[in-house]
């Protein structure tokens, strides 16, 4: 349990961080970055695992399982897709620049 005002500071600082780290992104990286940030919120899997771990009724187990199932898809799929996109950038850079 995190106290309200600490959480507020957390939200504020993390929001600034998110804004800062992508404020100067070349257009060429917009799609991979969207895909990459899509992967990062796959951390929801961890929350879903805890929700399932706490489950004591069948209803909670079903909901928890759905959460874990969806969250794992987000994390795994997000990673593969982003890596594939960025892999192409690497190869084209070797041939292209310099």
């Amino acid at each position, binding site marked *: 349990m995190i106290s309200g005002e600490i959480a507020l500071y*957390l939200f504020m600082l*993390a929001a600034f961080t998110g804004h800062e780290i992508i404020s100067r992104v070349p257009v060429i990286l*917009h799609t991979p970055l969207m*895909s990459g940030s899509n992967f990062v919120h796959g951390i929801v899997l961890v929350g879903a*695992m805890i929700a399932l771990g706490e489950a004591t009724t069948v209803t909670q187990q079903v909901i928890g399982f759905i959460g874990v199932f969806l969250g794992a898809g987000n994390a795994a*799929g997000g990673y593969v897709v982003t*890596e594939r996109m960025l892999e192409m950038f690497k190869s084209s850079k070797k041939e292209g620049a310099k």
Partner: protein
Amino acid sequence: MDKATLLYYAVQASYFAAAVLFILGIKRMSSPVTARSGIQWAGIGMLVATIATFLHGKVLTHNEHMMTNLLLMVLGIGISSAFAWISGKKVAMTDMPQMVALYNGMGGGSAAAIGASALIGAATHPEHHALTAAQTTLAVIGALIGSISFTGSLIAFAKLQGWMDKTFRFSGQQAVNGLFFLSAVGLGAALVFQLDTTIVIAFFAVSLLFGVLMTLPIGGADMPVVISLYNAFTGLAVAFEGYVQGNVALIIAGTVVGAAGTLLTRLMAKAMNRSISNVLFSNFGSSGGPATEIAGSMKPIEAGDAASLLYMAEKVIIVPGYGMAVAQAQHKIWELSQQLIKRDKTVKFAIHPVAGRMPGHMNVLLAEAGVPYDLIADMDDINPEFGTCDVAIVIGANDVVNPVAKTDKSSPIYGMPILDVINARQVIVIKRGKGAGFAGIENALFYADNCRMLYADGQEAANRLIAELKGIDSGGGH
């Protein structure tokens, strides 16, 4: 220190490490040089956090449900990530946008499930799963946002995959949507005061349905903005549910994505000269009066004549659009460009910020085909160059080159920045048929005196142009 305390600190340390790796990873992804290592850093963070969670006190409960729950956990992770991994590996590069939409929707659904679990738990077993007012409020808000992102992203996926008609509209739609939204908010507010299972179910039903209704009327041209917006939504939902669980990793990762995603959405909407509320609440293409009639006719051209034009040209600018992605023509187009470069012609690629179905979609495809960075130019850099360009080839782009955006105030795309292709000496448009673009607007460029239409699929057209170019070479030699 006993074993439980030690485990607690180990798990918390791994979450801390994951949060740091996520932030550094995203940071690295925002520069082309380090982008690839960025996703790997973030990946390590995810792996560490997921493994550590198996040791979390709320997972290793040692109660009678632990084994069942652990089994469900392993099954869920195994099946889902195997499915996602394989589908992500197999899918064609051109279908990436809908895959991002799908995976994003799954994340939103997962966040909604966490909210549902917390709310149901508190409603049925308040003695074990009590929530403070702040937790209930954020669980409800996160669940609402997550649900919208879940069903909304699935609709976006279905639309991009071609499983569903582009748009679905009826009169009074905005009023109906507004009613559903207010109902969802009302039911959510009721939950803060009265946790009741029936209200929880009603709340989720209305929220999920609202996500569908909200996305149905949005047209394909706006999909990049919508996917990016739902990405930010999922981030926020994850952050809120993270607060409910007291999990700092979720709060930080979710908020960072929420903020970055919102910024990205605004950049995209700006590139289309549309506000986000405009995308969501105005029916694209149905606004504005009747479009001004365009005089003249479309003039077709044969591949042979088009190749001659290219043969004589000194400077050629290629403008790719969604049609190139559909036809998978990026490799052939690059081959054609190499043929032109071999003949001492200057070739450049002009990329409109929202060409395709995701920002930078075209950059990704051209990179896949092996087109070097320095041949690819952004809109602002390339626009002055069209005046000195002999031939501009438009392949599968439509609305982003439509001069109506500058001239016709009644047009729904009026004010959207466009590529000034019309200024080129000669324009060749490669297009499969005469149909209008995604926005459903007639394109004045196609009727212009300096424009010729080469009716063919992108790959086939490029093939024919390459063959004709080679033919001119051998023909000119005798």
